[in-house]
């Protein structure tokens, strides 16, 4: 502690430290706050960087009143009426979704003679995920496919009519209060629909999270869980191989070789860390393609080989043992008291038995640290999977994020995907926070 416990200016000094730290934290956490804010904005407002708080999700409730219509066209058969109503409903819904990008969802309610004739809601998310082309269709085309579209989104039509609740009956009389609602109403009225249209806007917090559903549901036609799964398998595989192979290697280095040899070998392994990853990727790629080698080394005799490109093996194999994890394990093993090993040897235990029964249980913290930082490192890797996995099915989420940010996907969806991508690591970090601290402290002592 630089600041002594007692003294004249020490309280003020301490206060300054607190203030500096909290300001610093605010500044560096702001980007992530901004990421969350952007992810909750709609397609239009996400471009408005002066909005610090995302506006609530907009839901348009349209009431279409067919009272007068029925009176005027009493010659219509119920089937014709139904057809007309369904067509108009579909046109209205798709018109709003196509022309008012801020609206997340359209609730629709059809009324005729005090009875409800249709009811349902269509969210932008549902349309854009399944059939974005609906939004670009012309009116006649929409009318043609109306019943199919409505059925797809579960808007119900009641031929006999359904009794309305009192409060539902009332609100068609209200004039919609917000500007957007009025604008929508005016535009819908200009479409010459036969029902009288009233629009009321609602705000919904829940709808703001539609961006997340969008990001989760469809990235190039594939669900985000698939990419997470790939990342998990990738990280899991590497952790398994790191923990098993590096530990054994480190044990061998720390116990079986003389100090000079092991130091030299360790330096050799550490040197692999310094190799620019880029250098290795080309030869590694060729090797992964023809694993283990196309011909016997230094000859032309063909050797049985398999293609690991676009497989999990291809992702995992280059990471079987890192110099750094060997270094960590070795540091830990070197610390263990020598007497233990000597005692075991006197008992006639083999090296493997010593490793399994004495070293492993004692070095649980080392295993945990290696597991943790391997997970972190692999979870964040981008380039190698990007090169090896040409097939979208194999992409870890990092590659997907890269594609998303360089594509046509609006930034709010990209930010939602980013937020989702950071959740696993943040959770792991918060849960194992104390553990990381111990591990890091211990790494520090080794240095």
């Amino acid at each position, binding site marked *: 502690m630089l600041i002594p416990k007692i003294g004249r200016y020490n309280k003020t000094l301490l206060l300054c430290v607190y203030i500096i730290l909290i300001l610093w934290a605010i500044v560096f956490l702001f980007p992530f706050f901004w990421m969350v804010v952007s992810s909750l904005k709609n397609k239009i407002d996400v471009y408005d960087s002066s909005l610090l708080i995302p506006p609530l999700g907009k839901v348009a409730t349209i009431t279409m009143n067919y009272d007068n219509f029925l009176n005027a066209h009493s010659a219509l058969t119920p089937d014709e009426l139904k057809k007309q109503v369904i067509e108009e409903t579909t046109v209205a819904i798709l018109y709003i979704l196509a022309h008012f*990008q801020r609206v997340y969802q359209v609730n629709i309610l059809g009324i005729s003679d005090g009875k409800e004739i249709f009811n349902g809601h269509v969210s932008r998310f549902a349309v854009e995920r399944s059939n974005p082309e609906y939004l670009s269709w012309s009116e006649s085309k929409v009318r043609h496919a109306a019943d199919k579209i409505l059925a797809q989104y579960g808007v119900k039509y009641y031929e006999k009519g359904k009794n309305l609740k009192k409060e539902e009956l009332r609100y068609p009389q209200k004039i919609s209060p917000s500007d957007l609602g009025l604008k929508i109403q005016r535009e819908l009225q200009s479409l010459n629909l036969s029902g009288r249209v009233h629009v009321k806007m609602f705000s919904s917090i829940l709808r703001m999270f539609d961006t997340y559903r969008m990001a989760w549901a469809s990235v190039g036609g594939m669900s985000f869980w698939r990419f997470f799964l790939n990342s998990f398998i990738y990280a899991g595989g590497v952790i*398994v191989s790191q923990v098993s192979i590096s530990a054994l290697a480190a044990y061998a280095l720390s116990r079986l070789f003389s100090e000079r040899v092991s130091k030299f070998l360790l330096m050799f392994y550490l040197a692999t860390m310094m190799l620019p990853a880029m250098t290795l990727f080309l030869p590694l790629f060729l090797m992964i393609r023809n694993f283990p080698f196309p011909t016997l080394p230094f000859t032309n005799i063909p050797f049985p080989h398999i293609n690991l*490109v676009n497989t999990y093996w*291809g992702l995992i194999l280059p990471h079987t043992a890192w110099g750094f994890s060997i270094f960590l394990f070795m540091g830990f093993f070197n610390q263990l008291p020598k007497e233990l090993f000597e005692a075991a040897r006197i008992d006639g235990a083999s090296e493997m038995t010593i490793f399994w029964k004495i070293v492993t249980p004692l070095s649980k913290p080392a295993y945990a640290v290696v597991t943790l930082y391997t997970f972190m490192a692999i979870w964040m890797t981008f380039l190698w999977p990007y090169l090896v996995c*040409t097939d979208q099915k194999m992409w870890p989420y990092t590659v997907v994020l890269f594609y998303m940010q360089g594509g046509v996907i609006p930034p709010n969806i990209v930010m939602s995907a980013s937020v989702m991508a950071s959740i696993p690591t943040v959770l792991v970090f918060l849960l194992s926070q104390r553990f990381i601290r111990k591990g890091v402290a211990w790494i520090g002592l080794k240095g």
Partner: protein
Amino acid sequence: MKGKFSKIVPWIVSLAVVFSVAGIIPVFTEADTITITTWDDMTAVRSKSYCKVLKVVQEEFEKTHPNIRVNRLPMPKGGEIRRALVTAMSGGTGPDAFNEAYGPSMPVWIEQGFCYPLDEYIKDWKYKDDVAETVWPAAMEKGHIYGAPHYIATMGLAYRKDLFKEAGLPMRAPKNWDELVQFAQRLTVPEKHQYGFGLLGQEWLSWYWENFVWQAGGEVTKMLPNGKVELSFTDPPAVFAAKFYQDLRNKYKCTQKNVLETYDNLRGDFLSGRAAMWMSNTTDTTGFVARGLPLDKFGYGTLPAGPTGIKASVIELTYWTINSSRDKAHRDATWEYIKFMIDPNTFIKRWKLQAKYGLSGLDIPAYKNIDMTDYVAIPEEWARTNGESLKWGHIEYIFKDKIEPYLAPPIENLLLDPKADPWTELVKCAKKVVAEIPNTVLAPSAK
């Protein structure tokens, strides 16, 4: 502790088994028929309806050719195609038939030995005389033909009709450069985060800029009688085009500020109504519709004419190529597939299907005697634009693939620095090119 470990070991073993099975499976699936690999699963890059049409045709091939199995892998996205092909070819996983061999890239791929010469196949091909003559040179090297013509795309100016209406502009694409500037300035509304004209920066920049050069009456490169390539981009027309490009961003301030935007980002801006105009490919137009942009919201016109009245637009030629590392049986099967896919009747079939399922792609084959408009109704404006663009069309400049990386930085510099002088920048660039690329000479204007 032993108990815990014996629990982990089976996990490791079973994981290892699962992974190795996943890796080995492809090796054992040997079929009696010939299996060829292609990259024409277009789901990631083209619209749903496009793929639907393509699938019908592909299934028909499988029906008529029972002895050839086609293993379809997804086509990577635009900017990634090159990397994917290079890694796949060097890794030995290259496709037997590659359908997006882009004209300017052909020399590089021929040089690298990726493509098998198709002379013997083309010789016996029924339709070889129906193909437009301009198509062949780009696929030829030292008298051999390496690519079978797939389709032609041109560049046009896509504009947002709804934004034009708001700005009170006529519903047509600007006719010349002055109009382009005038329209774009009216369409630039900072409060709405809307800009008039989307400019492409970065790597592929010369793909945009070359059109301006041709419109100004110049050439980017010229073939000299002695077989050398003259870098005529230091001539006054090209310098004028560079100046215009610079002014669009800096003087008229009617473009986006972010020059780091990719082509896909620009497309996203256009779709979301941020960019009012941009230059896009014919194949993109149907993509807008598929992504939910209503037909009445955007138009597609010819590129504006330069001061010389030339409306030049780049013609992109795309070829099918055959992987040279495969044996004869595979090559023959691949040719069967290619022959089927580029058959005029296949195209006609695809158009007829488009008429049924909805317009999905303006892929124009290189044949002289068939016309898409005879089979499927496309918006009148698109058809006119396409016809006109083809008429004014200009094939890519010579050595594009080699010169492009050199040409991007000076023009980017012009975009970013309003004070930079186009001529000096371009001359500096030309000198660099001459020093590093064999067979190029400076134009007289550079001295």
